[in-house]
Every structure is written in C-alpha cells, then in structure tokens.
C-alpha cells in the first residue's frame, strides 16, 4: 500500500523535557490510523509537528512523497483536542473565514458549506453566534470546518468529546464515509471502543517513545493468549470444575446464556491444540459455548503500558 504520511525518527525536546524520542510512523493512504497513548505521552506533540505548528528537532516528515512544506497545510484538516471557535462571530462568517484560511475561495467555501450544512441539517444556524449554540452544536460546526477543504489527511484528536451518542455516531459515519471517499485519517482518542470499531492500524506512544505499532489485526494476533470462554452442561458441576482446575488455568467468566451451565475462561497451553481441547470438553459434558477470547484494544493498551 502507498504511504500518505511517513514520520521518520522524529524527536522533540522542550527545555529539559523530551516530548518525543525517535518516533517513526507510517500511515497508509485511505486507512484510519489510531494514535494511542496515555495522557502526556507525546501524541499531541506529534500531531502538532505533522501540522507544522511546532518543528521537530531532528527527523523528517514526508507527506505524499514530499518533505513537509508550508503549502501542505491545505492538504491537512485538523480537529484539535483543545478546540473552540470565535464566540462572538456568526457561524457562517466564521466558517467562511476558516475555510479561506485553508485556501478556499469565498465562492467555493460558500457552496461547500451549504452542502455540509444541509447534510448535517444545521442550515438555519448560519446567522447565529457561536455563543448562542450548545457545545455539541459548536462541535458540529468545527467538524464541518475541518473537512470542508477536502483534505487528503484528516487528523482528529478526541473527535467525539462533547457529542451525545446520536451525534457521535453521525460523526463516526461521516469519518468512515470520508475514508471511503479516499481520505486518510489519523485518529487519537482514549475511547477504545471507537478504535476497535474504526482503526485499521494503531501505534501506541508511551513516555515519548513508540512502543507498539502495526495493523490492528496483527497486533491482536500477537496478543492472543490462547484463552477460551466456554459453557458446559455437566451432571456434576463441582466435579467438572475440579477436573478443569487440575489441567488448566481457569478464570471465572460470565456471559449471557439460556442454559444453566458452568462458565469459565480457560487458558490452554500451546502444547494442546484447539481440537484436542474441544474434544476433551465434549468428553466432560454438553458444550454450549466456545469462543476464543480476542484481546481488546483496551487490554492491549493496559498490558503494554504496564509492561513498560
């Protein structure tokens, strides 16, 4: 796959504090890239470097094959975590102003704004001042302004904060739609379920270093622990529990079921194949539930951070 953005060994030092240490990432064209990490890890610094708000001390950033240059700002749409709009300006005027700063002509900006305002059903806000809008409404405007100039690269930092679930969903669908239309998305959030749902690729930054990077699926494979969730109907639950406890590491599990059964999470050693394990379970009773426990992004996140 072609890379839209390549960050090569970027470091950034603020006084005595190293905000980024030799961080490299590669973002594929048309993908959604999750940039994860605890608070203060250096994500925002990296994002600001990509936006040319700050310059890296060492390392380089390549956008679409070219080293990052001032004129590239029009190819990037950025929704920062700390965001706001001019409170006393009218919605329409403000959107036009910000669009023009991104290089759109006034006429073009007007047409596209009309399209987006209709699409999000916010057309009648045009003459309202930002201070008259609710936070969620203002966020919608902010989203429109970010994507208006059809950037190749979209960077969203906590895009769903301030949205109710309905609007969060709406924005999520819009982001996916933009991706399908060819945009590349970098997505930084602490909401692991949206990472799970949307990201093709993730990188984890911790204490200024990148500690994990790869396709979400590959990482999940890497973090599989041969753990299975099972449900078993047996004549004597207590005896079976004892048997299982003897042979495997077992953990309590609860899942919804219509049966009255034993529910466990079982860690199967590498020496035992899945088929053998299933055969063994069948020999104990009636198998009602068998699922491999796939590590969630949240699990991976916590585990990796704790390891480091």
């Amino acid at each position: 796959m072609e890379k839209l953005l390549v960050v090569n060994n970027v470091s950034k030092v603020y006084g005595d504090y190293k905000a980024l240490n030799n961080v490299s990432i590669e973002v594929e064209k048309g993908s959604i890239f999750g940039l994860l990490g605890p608070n203060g890890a250096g994500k925002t610094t990296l994002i600001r470097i990509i936006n040319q708000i700050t310059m890296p001390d060492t390392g380089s950033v390549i956008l679409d094959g070219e080293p990052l240059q001032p004129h590239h700002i029009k190819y990037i749409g950025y929704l920062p975590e700390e965001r706001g709009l001019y409170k006393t300006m009218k919605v329409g005027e403000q959107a036009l102003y910000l669009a023009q700063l991104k290089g759109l002509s006034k006429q073009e900006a007007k047409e596209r704004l009309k399209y987006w305002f209709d699409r999000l059903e916010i057309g009648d806000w045009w003459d309202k001042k930002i201070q008259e809008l609710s936070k969620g409404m203002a966020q919608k405007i902010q989203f429109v302004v970010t994507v208006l100039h059809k950037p190749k690269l979209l960077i969203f930092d906590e895009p769903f904060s301030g949205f109710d679930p309905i609007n969060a969903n709406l924005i999520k669908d819009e982001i996916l739609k933009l991706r399908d239309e060819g945009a590349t998305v970098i997505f930084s959030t602490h909401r692991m379920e949206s990472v799970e749902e949307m990201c093709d690729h993730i990188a984890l930054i911790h204490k200024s270093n990148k500690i994990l990077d790869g396709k979400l699926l590959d990482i999940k494979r890497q973090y599989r622990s041969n753990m299975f969730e099972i449900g078993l109907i047996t004549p004597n639950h207590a005896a079976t529990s004892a048997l299982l406890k003897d042979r495997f590491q077992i953990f309590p599990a609860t899942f919804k079921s219509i049966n009255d059964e034993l529910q466990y999470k079982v860690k199967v050693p590498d020496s035992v194949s899945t088929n053998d394990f299933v055969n063994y379970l069948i020999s104990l009773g009636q198998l009602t539930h068998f699922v491999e426990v796939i590590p969630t992004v949240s699990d991976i996140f916590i585990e990796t951070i704790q390891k480091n």
Partner: protein
Amino acid sequence: MNHLPLIIKREYLTKVRNKSFIVMTFLSPFIFVGIFALVAYLSSLNNDTVRIISVMDESGLFADEFNSSPHMQYKMLHNVSLEEAKKEAETNEIYGLLYIPKTGNLEDLSRKITFYSEDSPSLTMMSDINNMLEAKVNTLKLKEAGIDSETIKNLHIDISANQETFKGKETSKLGSGLKLAFGGAAGYLLFMFIIIYGNMIMRSVIEEKTSRVIEVIISSVKPRVLLLGKIFGTTLAGITQFLIWVILILVLMTVVTSIFGIDPAAASPSQQILENSVDGGTQRILHDVMLEINNLPIANLIVMFILFFVGGYLLYASLYASVGAAVDSETDTQQFMMPILMPLILAVYVGFFTVMDNPHGTVSQVFSYIPFTSPVVMLMRIPFGVPIWQQILSVVILFGSFVGMVWFAAKIYRVGILMYGKKPTYKEIFKWLKY
C-alpha cells in the same frame, strides 16, 4: 502570505461591529463635550457672583484706587470702628473687609494692612488687591524720594530683543513655545493612543487562547502572520474610533458653543491674560505666530509625525501583543504591564523636561534614537531642527525594532498559545525563546 489581508479584515470587522466599541465610539464624544460644557457653565456661574468688599481706609491714601468692577464692588466705610465694621460685614454677608490703618510712615502701613473674611479668601482676588496696594505705595514712596510719576513713565523702556538665526531667519520668543506646543501635543497624542489601544491589542491576542480557536488557526497560518494581522486590524479599528472622536468632538463643540453661547476661552484662565495684553501687542503677536508657523518645517513635520506615530504605536503594540501571547487570561497580564509603561513614561518625561531645556543636548539625542523613547522625544525635537539623516536613522531603528519585536512576540506566541493554565514567569518566557 495572502492570509494577512484576510486576518486584518476579520480583526477590523469584529472590533468595529462590537457593540461596546460602537457605544464607546459614539458616546465618548458626548460625554467629553458634556463635561466640557458643564465646566464652562460652572465657571461662568462662578464669574457671575458679585463680591462686595468693605474698605476701611483710615490712612486716606487709597481713596481713588478702589474702582468697582462687575465682579467686585467696593464699599467705602467712614467713621466706624473696626469692631463695628467687622460685625456689619459678617451680618450683611459681605465677602471681606479690608482694613488700612493710619500710621506714621509707609513702611509701617505696608505691614499693618489686614484683610478680614469668613474663610480664606480667593487667591486671585487677594493678589489683585495686593498688587493694587503695592503699586500705590510704591508710587507714594517714589514721590517721597522726589520723583514724580510723569518722570517714571518717561524713564520706563520695554525691551524685547529681536531674534535671528545665524542664517538670518527672523525668529521670536513665541517660536520656542510654538515648537514645544507642537512637539508636546504630538508626543502626548501618541502616549494616549498607545495607552488606549495597546490594551485592545493585548486583549485581541488573548482572545484566540480563551476561545481555544488558536490551534485551528495556527494550523493554517503562521503565528507571525496572525500577530501582524491582529496588530494591523486592531490599529485600523483604533484609528477609525479616534478619527470619529475627533470629528464628533469638533462638531459637537461648535454646536454646543454656538447654542449655549459659551465662550470656549472662558474655561481657560490663560485667555484672560492674553486679553489683558490686547493693546497694540496683538498685531505683533499675530505677526510672530504667522512668521513662526512659516518657519516651521511643515512638510518635514507632517511626514515625520506620521512615520513616528505609526512606528511608535506599532512597536508598543507588538510589546502589548507579546504580553498577550505569554499569558492565558487578562488577569495574568498585570505583572508584565510595568515594563511596557516604564519606557513610555520615561519618554514623556525626557520629552517634557530634557528636550524643553536643551533640544539638542546629549540626553535628548540619545533618547531620540532608542526606539522605545524616540517617537516621543524625536517628535519633540524635530521642530527645533534636526538634520534629516538623524531623523531617517531614528525612523529606521524604530521600524527595525518593530519587526524584531514582532519576531520576538511570535516566538513567545508560538509556545505560549499551546501552554494552557500555567502562569508564565520571565524565566520561562526566556526559555521559550530557545524552543
């Protein structure tokens, strides 16, 4: 950068459309003229009161000297005792009682004249009375010495030396005053303008931070361009307001003075002094004023006034902008205000004291090159004649400093905007410069 006009336009329009800005723009002149009219009215009220003064002249020497005027009436008392006179003055609400006792000689008399009144009497009135008595006693003394008043008049000669420069240009005493007046007015105007609109710039720079729009903006525009745009936009708004004020005040003044028939000069006491010398001197003074105005390097003054005014304002504006860049909210700005105001106040002091004393002395010269003081000091020096290369050098230094200052402010801005919730110290700001 084609963003600059866009930013200037936005800044200007938001400022100008702001409700409180509009209200201030159109209300201030009315308040100003209202206060002026009130003062003029009150002082005319004051002038209307007639003061009655009882005079008890036992010496009999001053009988012809007390001529009543519209504001001052003298009431001569005869054949009463001092106690009776006092009592009478008190019960009849007479302003005061002047007591001139009978004495053996004039020296004694001069020490024994007493003025009785309810409270401390008006200073100007007392000096009028004192002058009158003094003149009379002096004449009497001269007479005693055998010189009559005719002789004195004939002996008195007024001298006013003609002034010419080495190049042969006629100048006058009035010239220096006029030059000072021009320089002072220009310097003071700049000072006021900076004080009024500097804060506006600072607030406008903080605006992006409090509304958190900054990161969106800064991902499209360089901080330097944004800062420049804010400075220019706000300056234009300031000039608009200032011009409206000047025009409105002039118009209102004309209206008010013609409707209420207030003589604008009535408010200023200096006018009365001028009126006193209205005899033959007026022609001469008028001639001198015209001569001096012609002698002033008018074109030079106007060009330099504009350059220094704009340059000085922009330099201070960028200082205010750096303060705005460093802090998070307006309440944090206090600690940084002193260093801005100090050079400004210094400039005005140097201007009014040093330049007035010696326009081309070393101190005046040095301060007319330092960019933080040059706009005021140089503007005050120019009417006294400053070589054109010195003026140009000073302007170049000034504008160079402005560019440097914006660079400096942008550096602080670039870091400061992204630091929320921390009150910066000077040490930290110094560190930011190196980021």
